[in-house]
């Protein structure tokens, strides 16, 4: 083949430029650690990266939402534990003071203690997480339970004391894409006996009034209601516990799914450091060889010998 000078220079320019561009690609892969910078680098992987990234964000959001819901349920469970303890103490007093051997002043002291227990229960039920009341259903902006209300004769009003201002709403949280889980305790069911149970707070008010009236038989009559109330609270706690377990599992599953997505994104888009370092070394060698060859080829001209 006839080799002309223009051809020599043109080929030198083409070869050096392509060797340099390969080295530039290899350098950018090593320095950025990424092998995908544009959709055109790998169209299928680029689409998947977008998908996986959004999936990862979704699972992160679910994990954080489920985590917070679980914290809130734990707070509700703590409040119900306080209620449970107070109910046990009320039952103890009712059993003790329904016995005729106790005096009127013993019962009066008991009445004061029971009134105090009602306040304790109400304040536990008005627990807030953040700025919301956890036992109010969807009416979470105002305290769901009223405190102790006494009538003109000094008796505790069983209708107004512990009145429920919330609703029957149940909060739900997304625990997997498109899957919702109940994450609130129906305080109206557990404490107010909605749906056929015992109205625990009214029973406590009746107990306080019976003790004030020094009526052992009436005191004894509240025992059934108190026992049923304890059962209701225990049921609510076990539901809450199961929900916390579900949420914990959801948090773990979402975190695992998010980690998987991260791993897949990395597999699709991140450069293999060893591979890219060796690519870079190869590209450097190629560029050096190309420059050397071009430099050598320019040396030989008849001009140097005439």
């Amino acid at each position, binding site marked *: 083949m006839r080799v002309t000078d223009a051809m020599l220079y043109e080929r030198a320019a083409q070869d050096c430029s392509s060797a340099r561009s390969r080295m530039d690609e290899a350098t950018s892969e090593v320095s950025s650690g990424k092998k995908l910078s*544009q959709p*055109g680098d790998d169209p299928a992987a680029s689409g998947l990266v977008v998908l996986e990234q959004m999936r990862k964000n*979704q699972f992160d959001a679910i994990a*954080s939402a489920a985590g917070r819901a679980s914290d809130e349920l734990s707070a509700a469970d703590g409040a119900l534990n306080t209620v449970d303890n107070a109910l046990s103490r009320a039952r103890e007093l009712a059993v003790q003071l329904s016995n005729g051997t106790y005096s009127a002043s013993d019962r009066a002291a008991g009445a004061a203690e029971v009134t105090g227990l009602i306040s304790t229960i109400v304040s536990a039920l008005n627990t807030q997480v953040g700025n919301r009341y956890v036992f109010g259903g*969807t009416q979470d902006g105002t305290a769901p339970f009223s405190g102790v209300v006494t009538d003109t004769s000094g008796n505790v009003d069983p209708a107004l004391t512990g009145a429920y201002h919330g609703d029957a709403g149940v909060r739900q949280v997304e625990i997997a894409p498109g899957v919702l889980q109940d994450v609130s305790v129906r305080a109206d069911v557990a404490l107010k006996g909605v749906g056929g149970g015992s109205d625990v707070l009214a029973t406590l008010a009746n107990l306080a009034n019976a003790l004030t009236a020094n009526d052992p038989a009436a005191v004894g009559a509240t025992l059934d209601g108190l026992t049923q109330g304890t059962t209701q609270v225990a049921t609510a706690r076990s539901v809450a516990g199961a929900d916390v377990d579900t949420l914990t599992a959801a948090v773990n599953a979402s975190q695992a799914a998010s980690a998987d997505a991260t791993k897949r994104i990395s597999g699709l*888009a991140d450069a293999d450091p060893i591979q890219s370092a060796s690519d870079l070394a190869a590209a450097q060698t190629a560029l050096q060889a190309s420059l050397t060859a071009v430099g050598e080829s320019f040396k030989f001209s008849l001009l140097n010998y005439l």
Partner: protein
Amino acid sequence: MSDLFRILGSAASSLDAQTAAAATTSHNLENSNTPGYARQRVSIETTLPAEEVGNVYIGQGAQVASVTQVRDGFLEAQLPSAFGQASSSSATASTLQAVDALDPQASGGLGDAVSGFYAALSQLAQNAADPGLRQSAVSAAQTLATSFNQTRGALEEARTGVDQKLSGDVAQVNDLAQTVASLNGQIRAARAGGAEPNDLLDARQQAVDQLAQLSGALPVATSEGDVSLFLSGGAPLVTSLKAGTLSAVPDPANGGHLGLELKAGGVQRKVSPGGELGGLLSARDGALETAVNSLDTLAFDFSGAVNAVHQAGVDLSGNAGQPLFSVTALNGAAAQIAVNAAIAANPALLATAHAGGGPGDASNVNDLLKTQSQLLSGGLDASGTLSQVTSAFGATAASAKAQSDADGALRDHLTTLRASASGVSIDEELIAMQKTQQAYQAISKVLQTTNDLFTTLMSIKPT
């Protein structure tokens, strides 16, 4: 009969021939770095007829027969279309490569904005009445709308950038077409004298090459020795001595982007050229337009889905929800999409609850969350659609790049072959120069010797 004067005469014309050879060699050397230059060769021949003396012919030296270009017609015929193809695919590839709006890993992209919107809703579901969370959900919706606007804006900007480049290229094409037409005329005039105007041919070839790169125009040689140029579809850019005028005209049917029209022979027609112009058009009205339209569809469907759910809920005051996103038409949806101004001003208007629910009722937020996996008109959910838009754009960009590499390799191969056939080799020219020098010296020696012969002759004294 042969005489010494005749020898002097033929030596003089032979010296002329060698001078012409030296001049051509030096012209070649001087143009060794001139683009489009084809090396020239002097062909020297014996002066005819030889003189008949008695019954023998005595030669009369040498003379220049012609000075011709060395060109390989077979190669040159393939070059214009190779130039056109390579410029076209390279223009498409580099235009698409310069667009970074759809880069898969760029943070703050549309994908992040969509998931950011749903993450904010997911937080809002925790405490629907909280003003802070409502505000951040509205902000996330605004970020999403802005992200749609920006992504579409960046793609549209790339299309507008193509328009600007088109205008520049069109002016260049018109200049070059004029040049070719006028060179056709000059070459005709020069050839009338009988000789080949090599340097004019080079200049025309150079202009034809550039036109092939810019517009994909293919040359057709005419019987008069002119070169006419035709765009794809047979639109005549140059016919012999007349050049058409290409113009870039806004096309209302294509969002005001520029379309190309050629005016030739009093006829104005739409043309779709090849070359760089064609490559730019194919990027602008191909992958970029598809991506813009897909984004519009996504914005329209997505806001429709979210709005339907949002309007089914009630806000903090128990009033029915308003549309969350305001989008009026499918065409340009991604550019128009914005958060309803009333909701943006008052996050309490977010319809988080179902009718009858309290302020903490987040059931409608949960319904909104479900739109994340709702299938849109393309049969995919929002993330799937976005992923598909990215892949489709990437696939076009990748195939344009591959095509450009292949076309570029063919063009480089052919130009190398042309450089091999027509380029100047300095070594070769130096050798030719040496050869000419030797011949020149030899002929000078002839003159010297003839002169000596004359002197000898003149010094003969009568006895």
